[in-house]
């Protein structure tokens, strides 16, 4: 066992939640756990907002005619759905909440390396969020979340600059979080917590942070240049003076493809922890899972051109991008195989987090494999800008990251809040989410394959059957997402008190009380065994 000396605690001992009260103790806190809670509340708001936009989009698409909204409003709806979900929910989701809360605890530290910068990054996020909400309140933006010029720079009559500023500012929040994690993981590890003993959750966040550090500034400057171009009516993407709008796409996707991995790697990190715990086994192939996180981060920077196969970029470039995009499947598949192999002959328990993990593995596999269809040049030409693409990335982003986020939230909920959530309701909503999700997005593969283009508010009647299914599924999914909101809040007041380690999980975060004390551990922990020593002390078997 790792040695953190357990002191017997009464139920009302001091923890990070009850040492200080009042709004000031929250808004000026530098405790990574409290900042994680601030993030949790803020991203939940944006998830709700983005979800409302999604429901309106699905409502419009229930019928082939553009009857509920006119095309301009519809364009704004899907744009704001994209901007909110990507920049204000998915990118901060797991890193800023679970990562923020858990990384210092998992490596046995008191806090992140730069607690004040951590708080600063939340404030930057809030400023960006307010600008975004303000933009939407004033009438929104209709360029799609990708801001392609020359539409965004010249022709759009909506609030492009304001939206661009919101995205630009939010980028700095993301950069600071990544920077903080990298320094923390390098410098703050407890004695004995070597890199080959790091929880895989931490490895995943390390890879994520590298992307945040190296990718985000590129999109920031690109969007800044676009904003300048729009304000001063002249710029480097303007075809009227010989500028190249395609250059914007190159720069944009140089970040925004890796950003996809900001939105999936942390989810994979969560799944590693859950699968190991609920299979009672050390993750199969630990070094390969850790290495594949880094591999995905590195390869992710070399594949952006797959978004541009039909823009007229050089065919040779397309070939290389196609090949490299398929190469990303290798580290991704390594992860899926390793999760499966971890479960093999494990003693599996089917609690809520594990249900989400099952959902993640299945849906991410579908999302990943359909990515190969899109990475293949010939099929890409047919599928570009159809609902097939929409279905593909929702399988990864929602089926992957959101399920990973919910799974992780349930897994660590007892640690974070000190309360157990109601298991029955947890399982039920995990099931509803899974069914609703597939109902919503699987028909979109079919519609897209049959040729239905994305981003139109009206469509040919033969696609209606897919869209009705999708809209119906979205309502089910909506219920599935609403239930946790209700019962998790309920559990804060009425849930049974959580023990320090309700799942019998390994990892330093489980060796301190629930909720943890302000400085995480009563005595500085020392790690003196392999990570994930589920084999137990009785057998002494250490794999790997």
């Amino acid at each position, binding site marked *: 066992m790792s040695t953190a000396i357990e002191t017997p605690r009464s139920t009302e001992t001091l923890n990070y939640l009850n040492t200080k009260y009042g709004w000031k103790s929250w808004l000026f806190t530098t405790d990574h756990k409290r900042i994680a809670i601030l993030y949790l509340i803020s991203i939940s708001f944006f998830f709700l907002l983005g979800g409302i936009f999604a429901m309106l989009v699905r409502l419009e698409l229930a019928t082939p005619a553009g009857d509920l909204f006119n095309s301009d409003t519809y364009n704004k709806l899907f744009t704001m759905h994209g901007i909110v979900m990507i920049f204000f929910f998915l990118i901060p989701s797991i890193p800023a909440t679970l990562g923020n809360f858990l990384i210092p605890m998992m490596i046995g530290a008191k806090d992140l390396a730069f607690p004040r910068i951590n708080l600063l990054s939340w404030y930057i996020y809030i400023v960006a969020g307010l600008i975004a909400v303000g933009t939407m309140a004033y009438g929104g933006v209709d360029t799609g979340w990708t801001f392609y010029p020359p539409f965004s720079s010249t022709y759009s009559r909506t609030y492009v600059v304001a939206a661009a500023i919101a995205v630009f500012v939010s980028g700095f929040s993301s950069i600071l979080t990544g*920077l903080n994690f990298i320094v923390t993981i390098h410098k703050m590890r407890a004695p004995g917590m070597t890199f080959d003993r790091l929880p895989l959750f931490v490895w995943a966040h390390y890879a994520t942070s590298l992307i945040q550090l*190296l990718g985000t500034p*590129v999109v920031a400057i690109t969007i800044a240049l676009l904003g300048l171009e729009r304000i001063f009516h*002249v710029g*480097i993407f303007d075809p009227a003076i010989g500028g190249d709008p395609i250059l914007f796409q190159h720069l944009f996707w140089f970040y925004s493809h890796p950003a996809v991995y900001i939105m999936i790697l942390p989810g994979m990190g969560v799944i590693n922890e859950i699968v190991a715990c609920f299979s009672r086994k050390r993750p199969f192939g630990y070094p390969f899972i850790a290495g594949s996180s880094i591999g995905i981060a590195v390869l992710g920077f070399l594949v952006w051109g797959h978004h541009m196969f039909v823009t007229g970029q050089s065919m040779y470039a397309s070939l290389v991008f196609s090949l490299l995009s398929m190469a990303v499947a290798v580290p991704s598949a390594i992860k899926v195989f390793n999760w499966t192999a971890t479960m093999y002959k494990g003693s599996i328990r089917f609690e809520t987090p594990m249900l989400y993990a099952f959902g993640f593995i299945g849906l991410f596999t579908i999302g990943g494999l359909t990515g190969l269809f899109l990475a293949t040049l010939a099929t890409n030409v047919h599928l570009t800008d159809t609902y097939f693409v929409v279905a593909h990335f929702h399988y990864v982003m929602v089926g992957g990251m959101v399920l990973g986020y919910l799974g992780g939230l349930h897994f660590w909920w007892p640690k974070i809040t000190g309360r157990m959530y109601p298991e029955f309701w947890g399982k039920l909503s995990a099931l509803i989410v899974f069914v609703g999700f597939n109902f919503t997005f699987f028909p979109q593969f079919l519609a897209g394959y049959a040729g239905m283009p994305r981003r139109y508010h009206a469509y040919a009647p033969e696609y209606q059957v897919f869209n009705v299914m999708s809209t119906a599924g979205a309502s089910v999914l909506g219920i599935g997402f609403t239930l946790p909101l209700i019962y998790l809040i309920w559990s804060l007041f009425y849930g049974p008190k959580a023990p320090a380690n309700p799942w019998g999980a390994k990892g330093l975060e489980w060796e301190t009380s629930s909720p943890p004390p302000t400085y995480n551990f009563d005595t500085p922990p020392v790690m003196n065994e392999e990570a994930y020593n589920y084999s137990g002390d009785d057998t002494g078997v250490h794999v790997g």
Partner: protein
Amino acid sequence: MEQQFSSAQLGMWAFLLTEIMFFGGMFGAYTVYRSMYPGAFQSTTHYMNVTLGMANTLVLIASSLTMALAVRSAQVDNQKMLRIMIVLTLFFGFVFLGIKGYEYHEKWVEHLIPGPHFEYNVPNYAHQAQILFFLYFAMTGTHALHMVIGAGLLTYLLIKSYKGSFSSHYYTPVEIIGLYWHFVDIVWIFLFPLLYLIGAHLHA
């Protein structure tokens, strides 16, 4: 304390990595357009004030030296020298910004600001040269913004040093702000030849 120092240092290096990518976007755009429109880009060097650019390069190199000496002074506990060096670095920083401002003014007078009032007397390149000047202002402007932020940080150091915050035991802020300052100088070392020098001799 030791851990704090090495954390702060690693943090600054990580931040500079971010900065490299930030400027990298613009350097990338520059490279693309330079290879697309070599003639137009070459013609613009004629409008760059190489003398002032050279002067600014020397000023920045001097400021890097004084910055390094400031760090050294903190390490050996020489408080007076520390303050002198910070003030000198600040001074060079402002000289740079002053010269840069004068150059911008020149561009304004010569109608070389991209936009509706842009005028360029090489008719074939009238459009494309705007791209270069847009990049010129974006890159040197971003660089100047970094200088202004650097000046703010140096002022903070100066105030702190008057309060006697730094010693041979604790000089983390001097060291990491120094790193930042050197980085901003190095960016200029790349900007100067790219924007002012390449092909300039062809117009002699």
